[in-house]
């Protein structure tokens, strides 16, 4: 059998192949030769063959049949064989292969070899790809080598130990004694790998971290020597001595100083020194500065140092080198939360980076810009961001649009500005806007009541220009449906009103329905909008029949959603026409639940009356407390007699007043029970018991306080009915019914109530503020009272102002006071 060709020759031959097929043929021929050579157990040429196999493997061809051969090479005595064998093992034999474990014994032997280069090979292989089992078996050997005085082996053993710890963290303890004097080495290789080992241990174990904190002074000293020492040719890189070691030490200091005042204190000086003395003209210096900045930001550094760090990042932003700008933006993004003001100073530079050509830099700059937006700079920033949105790549548009919406929502200086901004986004990046922004925008538009006419006009004009951007079209159709009447009436305060007729509007909406550009969702919006316009526009028969026709056409649409809508609307026209106006009337302002957070007691839904009421009742709160004190003294403590005067409010200055126990802290019985209080006539039952001693007849949740008449004078009778709010038993829901038995209606009926501070009161709007005469109807109003401490209370009318005028009646506020 002729000698197998040399590696060089094989490579040369393969490179002459002109096509993939030719190459494959050559490779297959050679593989066959190699396989037969392996079968013959040829020791002489095994090394050469495996080398050739590795080359072919790199080209992408399978080489698994060489795995065992690698093992044989490793077991050989020749250094050449071992070199190739270990290389082959690292390339072909990762831990997923079954053959992997067979290496263990060879490696063990080689770790104890007399030649350091053989030991080195073994350590390297173990440290790059040793499996957990191998690491477990050989950890002892590695630990031994970690203590050797041979620096060549020591540095390799240290990194090997790092790998062992990564694979089998439990073995970390084992290496602890060997780390004792690692840092007193002079050899930079050993120093570097020791710092890596210490870093790995500290990252994995808090105990190790506290143990190694005592090394901070030593590390600081080593770093200082590196900076201060003169030129050392062996480790010099562009005038800086061993930057790799410097960066690693800085990283270890970061981990040791984090969260620890003393350590941070000890490193302040050296960090300042590195930050100010490092040359920044080359990449090397900047790499060290970068690491320093990261360290300063993470430890408990003093504020002067932090400002220095941010300024370094600011200088980075102005650097010509793109890499450095990128790194600066990334770091600023990390620090913007904690050091917001300092980062703000560099805002203009950051905004300039939006115009950079590099995609990665643009993205970072965009994220950072959004983080820096606040109430003061919103106008300027938004201008830049909108410009960016216009010109950026499509990948960015979605994120940018969402960011703009969020920022606009938080910091919009005026509603008009907000709506203009949204319009701008929709028209420039309309198709990239996220789906959930459509409902959010609609909600926003409904809330800005004064801007409705302006908004619908602008949206209409935008629709005339372009109907391809679906989110824009959807929002526009919805608005036209809601505010179509404002659109055709030609009233617009904010800008020149346009003249558009109802038919033109319907044309546009019908156009959307038939257009190929409209998605099914958009069609749904337009159909509903057309339907709503049947009530908004004047009821001309031709128009109604036009709308009815459109609606009935879609009753047979293939799209199920459209079909359902059309059929339902059709039914509305046919059978329920009397309900149509009510069903299609203007939407109320929608409460936003998410971003504002749920308020406990929310002021009511935008009705102006209640807000007046609420603001009025606030000043009253303080007064009742002082009056209550007097009465409390008279009444004494717990075992009290709820004395009830139901109908007529007697002079309140007297001892009685009206006392109603509205919220007994324990459950209440349904009916009254006679109390031992002597002198007061019990005319009407509904006083509520002192719940402290009675047996509960109902459970708490269902406990109902019986209704009572709170006021009955001069024909005006007010009854309270009570119940506990179901989800929250601390809330009592009081419904007042006001009826008027006089002959004249009582207009401008306003009910006020005041509560002491421990309570919270919510007055919902009354059903009406006219109480019709002769008991023909009643006004109802719901009051919710939250009594978190379940204190008993009673209610009494204000001492003065008990009279009322017949045309406008103002009931004196009832005061909820509390006993004890």
């Amino acid at each position, binding site marked *: 059998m002729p000698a197998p060709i040399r590696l060089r020759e094989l490579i040369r031959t393969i490179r002459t192949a002109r096509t993939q097929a030719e190459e494959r043929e050559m490779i297959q021929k050679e593989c066959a030769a190699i396989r037969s050579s392996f079968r013959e157990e040829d020791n002489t040429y095994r090394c050469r063959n495996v080398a050739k196999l590795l080359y072919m493997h790199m080209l992408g061809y399978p080489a698994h049949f060489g795995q065992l051969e690698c093992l044989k090479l490793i077991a050989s005595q020749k*250094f050449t064989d071992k070199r190739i064998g270990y290389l082959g093992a690292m*390339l072909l034999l*990762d831990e997923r292969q079954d053959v992997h474990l067979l290496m263990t014994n060879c490696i063990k032997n080689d770790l104890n070899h007399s030649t350091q280069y053989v030991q080195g090979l073994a350590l390297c292989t173990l440290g790059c*790809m040793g499996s957990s089992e191998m690491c477990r078996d050989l950890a002892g050997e590695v630990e031994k080598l970690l203590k050797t005085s041979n620096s060549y082996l020591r540095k390799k053993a240290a990194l090997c130990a790092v790998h062992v710890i990564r694979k089998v963290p439990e073995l970390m303890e084992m290496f602890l004694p060997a780390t004792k004097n690692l840092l007193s080495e002079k050899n*930079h290789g050993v120093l570097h790998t020791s710092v890596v080992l210490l870093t790995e241990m500290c990252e994995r174990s808090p105990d190790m971290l506290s143990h190694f904190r005592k090394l901070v002074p030593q590390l600081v000293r080593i770093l200082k020597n590196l900076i201060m020492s003169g030129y050392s040719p062996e480790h010099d890189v562009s005038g800086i001595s061993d*930057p790799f070691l410097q*960066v690693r030490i800085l990283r270890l200091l970061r981990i040791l100083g984090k969260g620890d005042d003393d350590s941070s204190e000890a490193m302040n000086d050296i960090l300042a020194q590195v930050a100010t003395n490092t040359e920044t003209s080359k990449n090397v210096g900047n*790499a060290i500065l970068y690491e320093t900045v990261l360290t300063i930001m993470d430890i408990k550094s003093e504020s002067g140092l932090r400002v220095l760090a941010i300024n370094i990042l600011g200088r980075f932003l102005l650097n010509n080198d793109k890499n450095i700008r*990128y790194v600066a933006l990334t770091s600023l993004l990390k620090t913007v939360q904690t050091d917001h003001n300092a980062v703000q100073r560099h805002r203009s530079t950051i905004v300039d980076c939006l115009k950079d050509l590099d995609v990665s830099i643009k993205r970072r700059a965009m994220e950072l810009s959004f983080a820096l937006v606040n109430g003061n700079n919103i106008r300027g920033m938004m201008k830049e961001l909108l410009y960016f949105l216009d010109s950026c790549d499509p990948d960015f548009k979605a994120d940018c649009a969402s960011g703009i919406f969020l920022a606009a929502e938080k910091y919009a200086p005026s509603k008009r500005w907000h709506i203009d901004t949204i319009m701008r986004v929709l028209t420039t990046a309309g198709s990239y806007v996220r789906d959930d922004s459509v409902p959010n925008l609609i909600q926003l538009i409904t809330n800005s009541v004064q801007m409705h006419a302006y908004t619908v006009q602008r949206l209409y004009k935008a629709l005339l220009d372009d109907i391809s951007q679906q989110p824009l079209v959807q929002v526009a159709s919805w608005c036209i449906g809601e505010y179509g009447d404002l659109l055709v009436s030609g009233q617009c305060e904010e800008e020149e009103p346009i003249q558009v007729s109802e038919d033109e509007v319907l044309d546009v909406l019908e156009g959307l329905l038939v257009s190929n550009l409209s998605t099914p969702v958009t069609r749904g919006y337009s159909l509903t909008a057309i339907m709503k316009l049947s009530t908004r526009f004047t009821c001309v028969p031709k128009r109604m029949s036009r709308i009815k026709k459109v609606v009935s056409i879609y009753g047979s649409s293939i799209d199920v959603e459209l079909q359902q809508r059309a059929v339902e609307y059709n039914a509305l026209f046919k059978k329920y026409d009397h309900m149509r106006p009510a069903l299609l009337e203007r939407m109320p302002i929608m409460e936003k639940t998410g971003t504002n957070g749920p308020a406990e007691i929310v002021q009511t839904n935008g009705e102006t009356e209640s807000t007046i009421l609420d603001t009025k009742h606030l000043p009253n709160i303080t007064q009742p407390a002082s009056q209550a004190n007097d009465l409390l003294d008279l009444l004494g403590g717990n075992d009290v007699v709820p004395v009830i005067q139901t109908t007529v409010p007697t002079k309140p200055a007297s001892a009685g007043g009206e006392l109603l126990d509205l919220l007994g802290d324990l459950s209440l019985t349904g009916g009254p029970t006679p109390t031992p209080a002597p002198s007061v006539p019990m005319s009407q039952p509904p006083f509520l018991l002192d719940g402290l001693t009675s047996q509960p007849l109902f459970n708490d949740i269902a406990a109902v306080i019986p209704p009572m008449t709170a006021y009955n004078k001069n024909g005006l009778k007010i009854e309270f009915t009570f119940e506990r709010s179901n989800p929250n038993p601390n809330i009592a829901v009081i419904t007042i019914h006001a009826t008027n038995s006089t002959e004249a209606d009582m207009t401008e009926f306003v009910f006020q109530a005041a509560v002491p501070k421990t309570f919270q009161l919510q007055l919902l709007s009354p059903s009406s503020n006219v109480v019709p005469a002769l008991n023909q109807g009643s006004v109802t109003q719901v009051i919710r009272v939250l009594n978190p401490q379940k204190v008993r209370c009673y209610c009494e009318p204000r001492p003065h102002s008990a009279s009322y005028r017949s045309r406008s009646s103002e009931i004196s506020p009832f005061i909820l006071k509390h006993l004890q």
Partner: protein
Amino acid sequence: MMHFLLLFSRQGKLRLQKWFLPLPERDRKKIVKDMTTMMLARKPRTCNFLHWKDLKIVYKRYASLYFCCALENQDNELLALEILHRYVELLDKYFGNVCELDIIFNFEKAYFILDEFLMGGEIQETSKLSIAKSIEASDMLQETE
């Protein structure tokens, strides 16, 4: 730590692959393909850093070869550029004005040098002189046996 180091030509041919994490063969091939596509698509004056999955990719082009490595989040990218540069310097010292052909025909030597410089994804020696000496001695050992 570095997850992998790759060298490939402008035509996308792999010249060296060093993996510091165990990955199945199929995944390795896919990663090589992804890296090659990404790097070759980069425009000339863009920055040398990329984000890929949860790793930072640092690459640098030297003549006809792309040197590409993958770092974890806490690693220093600017220093990685220095690491790549140091490796090129070591190759240059060893081969004397190294070019792609040297690495093609002597790929095993390129690996040996790399194994003296990096191990387990970390730097093992920061002195150029020391590495050169070790390689020389190992070569001598090979010659004399």
